[in-house]
């Protein structure tokens, strides 16, 4: 029951000029829609059991084996403060490249790949709840508002309740 969608580089390898458009993969956690640049996504695979790590941060779901490479899976739901995902076969792990590491992001489902003009990306509003500084910007679609994730922040301090918001200047 492991459905793997390979996003081969050949589909998206043409570098998008910053002025033109950003191609974004959107996915859902509950009712919220999040997005990341397609270039960061290595593949999307069905939920797979992970091995918990002792005394890890709550949003660190555990580690799994991706064709011989061990990577950590982060629960986005926990990271945004909505508790742990009760993972089932319909849940999805988005495998992403962040900095020089590979990580998995546990989400409810992947919705779409959309091209948005760069002008449609708004800076993250300084809201009271900006998902703990995990958001890099907002994309306004006709039907939806997509929150662009700062993946490095999600992985670094997502879900760390004690993490002071002010620590993130960018």
């Amino acid at each position, binding site marked *: 029951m492991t459905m793997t969608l390979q996003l081969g580089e050949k589909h998206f390898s043409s570098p998008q000029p910053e002025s033109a458009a950003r191609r974004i993969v959107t996915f859902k956690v509950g009712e919220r829609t999040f997005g990341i640049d397609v270039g960061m996504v290595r593949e999307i695979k069905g939920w797979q059991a*992970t*091995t*918990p*790590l*002792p005394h890890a941060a709550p949003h660190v779901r*555990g580690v799994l084996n991706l064709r*011989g490479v*061990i990577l*950590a899976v982060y629960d986005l739901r926990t990271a945004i403060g909505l508790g742990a995902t009760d993972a089932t076969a319909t849940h999805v792990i988005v495998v992403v490249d962040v900095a020089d590491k590979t990580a998995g992001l546990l989400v409810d489902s992947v919705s779409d790949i959309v091209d948005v003009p760069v002008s449609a990306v708004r800076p993250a509003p300084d809201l009271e709840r900006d998902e703990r500084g995990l958001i890099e910007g907002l994309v306004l679609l006709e039907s939806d508002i997509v929150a662009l994730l700062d993946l490095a922040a999600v992985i670094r301090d997502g879900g760390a309740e004690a993490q002071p918001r002010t620590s993130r200047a960018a």
Partner: protein
Amino acid sequence: MDPLAELKQTFFQECEELLGALEQKLQALDEGSGDPEDVNAAFRAIHSIKGGAGAFGCTGLVGFSHVFEAALDHLRSGRVAIEDAPFTLFLRCADAVADLVAAARNDEPASERPDLLAALEQVGKEPQAAAAVPTPAPAPEPAAPAAEGDAPPGIAALGNLIAMVEAKTAAPAADDGWDDEPAAATSGRDVHLRITPESDLFRRVIEPRVVLGSLPAEDIVSIRCDLSQVPPLESLDVSDCWMRFEVGLRTELSIEELHGRFDFSLANEEFEIVFPEEAEAEAPQASEAAPEPEVSSAVAADLSAILARLGPVSEAAAEPDIRPAPVEAAAPVPAATMDTAAGRTAPRAPVVETAKRQAVSVRVDLDRIDKLMNLVGEIVITQSMLVECVRSLPYDVHAKTAEGMLTLSRQTRELQDHVMAVRAQPVKAVFQRMPRLVRELAQTLGKEVRLVLEGENTEVDKTIIEELADPLTHMIRNSMDHGLETPDERVAAGKPPEGTIKLIAEHRAGRIVISVTDDGRGIGRERLLAKARSRGLVGTDERLAPEEIDQLIFAAGLSTAEAVSDISGRGVGMDVVRRNVESLGGRISVDSDPGRGCKFTLALPLTLAVLEGMVIRCGGDRYVIPIASVIETQHLAATPIERLPFGQEVLRWRGEVTPLYRLGAVMGSTGATDENIIIIAENERGNTIGIAVDEIVGQQQVVVKSLEANYGTVNGASAATILGDGLVALILDIDSMLRLAASGGRAFQSDLKMAG
């Protein structure tokens, strides 16, 4: 890659080996081995380096090596007794050659070492006056010196000849008799060169133009190319060279200089230097000299190989039909012949060595082995996955496949062992660099130090070897700078002025244990403790056992050096070492005996790739304990467990009180635990602990996968592996687990239920 660059790369790789051999042999000689074979080996090494350096145009290296080689040759020829030779100087020169090689490799300007060169030039100068004069006498009959000494006769004779020629050029005043002839060569006379390259000339990336171009153009009187050897067109291989040249020179160059011109393009048997006017007079001796090497073909392996090469050439010289030009039917003068013969042995040596190495080993890119290793790792995982699949089959199918599975698993294991063996390398590769470090430091610090190496042939995985150099360098520096006293202090303390550092490698319980022991002053505990207190690492009223104080040396930012020196003492020493070692899955510990010395012990896994593990289950999770740490297992029910006053559970094992840890609690396992089994394990310091687990699932080889690569350090675990069902299991690290247990889980201890 560009083939030349590739060749150059290979040359530098070889240089490393050659430098290692050179240093090792010189070291052995320095310690008084007195073995002429060591001298020969050292000479061959430096000669090979010089040859390669010439081919690649590393002039600085060539120049230095040449002088060094010449100095070593005095030993080879026996002109300088091995016992009297300045090996300390030679060792420093070997270091200098290493520097030059490094400079050439990085395309940096080479540093001149006039001091060493001058010292090298002196080698053999004093004895020369006495020894060089008598030696010319037996020279014309090479058989005579051949009989003396324990060097193989042919070689000794040839060595003597080189010596004589050199003695002549170096000290013309001492000339008499035979020696006068080459002296005459310096006054611009006719010299005839017969260049008969072997057919592989082009394949050695040399062409005749280069060869002839190395002669001074203004001295060349005539050049004749002899194409008579070129085979018929249909059988002509264009990559073979069949050209022969006759070159008439009127030159002031000495024979030796002429030889030098061809040093890097032609082997010595590929050209001949003839003085036409003396050709007939000395013919008889020459013909005697030529076959002489054949007589010695029964000597040591490589020498016989060298001579085997000489043999055919000598025969060729006797066969007129191979000779292109009929004029020189008479054999050449002894001066030329002997010089040629003498030169032959040495320059051919590298070729023979190469040939020998090709026969026994293949140079493989480490990358390829790594890929192979990864693949084998995957096979191991797949294989254990298959085993589990097969187990769930109906019995009749299972029974049929089980046998095959058994064979497969045996073969997989064998395959793995063999691949591991390919990667295994003796620690020598790292140990070899240490004598130089010690020498240089000793000089800087003004201390007298003897370095003793043991267990250099202990084999470890290549990946580990590479990571060993830094920690070892640091540890030795530390011992030399802080541990050992100056000679005066040592004498005052009733010790010999020369300090000893022992570097020992051995295999112990599936690990490689490397220790650095010095006989210095030991760790200054009071100073260390005071410093730790002043930095707030230790509370002011905290009492520490002496051993605990010693361990502070690994704390970050602590250095006991009174003054920060170039060598160590910046406080970034031992804590960095500890971190390096721990990142390799190893441990470091220190034992100090005040006033008598200090011992650092490194324990590292033999390989970073695979380990034999016991798979255990605790709650909903499985873990792997390295078999090497497991001493025995027993049932929990049969073991009386007691509690110490402060709550720590202990059990009695072999009469010792052993602390017991419940794995589920320490590692935060998911699900309810139901401990049945106690595993008695051993930590790095040899202390035993009991670990309570639910079940032992099995024992298997597991492929070690890094957690750091994509995540980070995990407390309690050194790495992870993939089990047969594709799930990840953590590989427990006993010491790290104990620290985790002591800290009580600390941050992020969460009640959050993690799905398994």
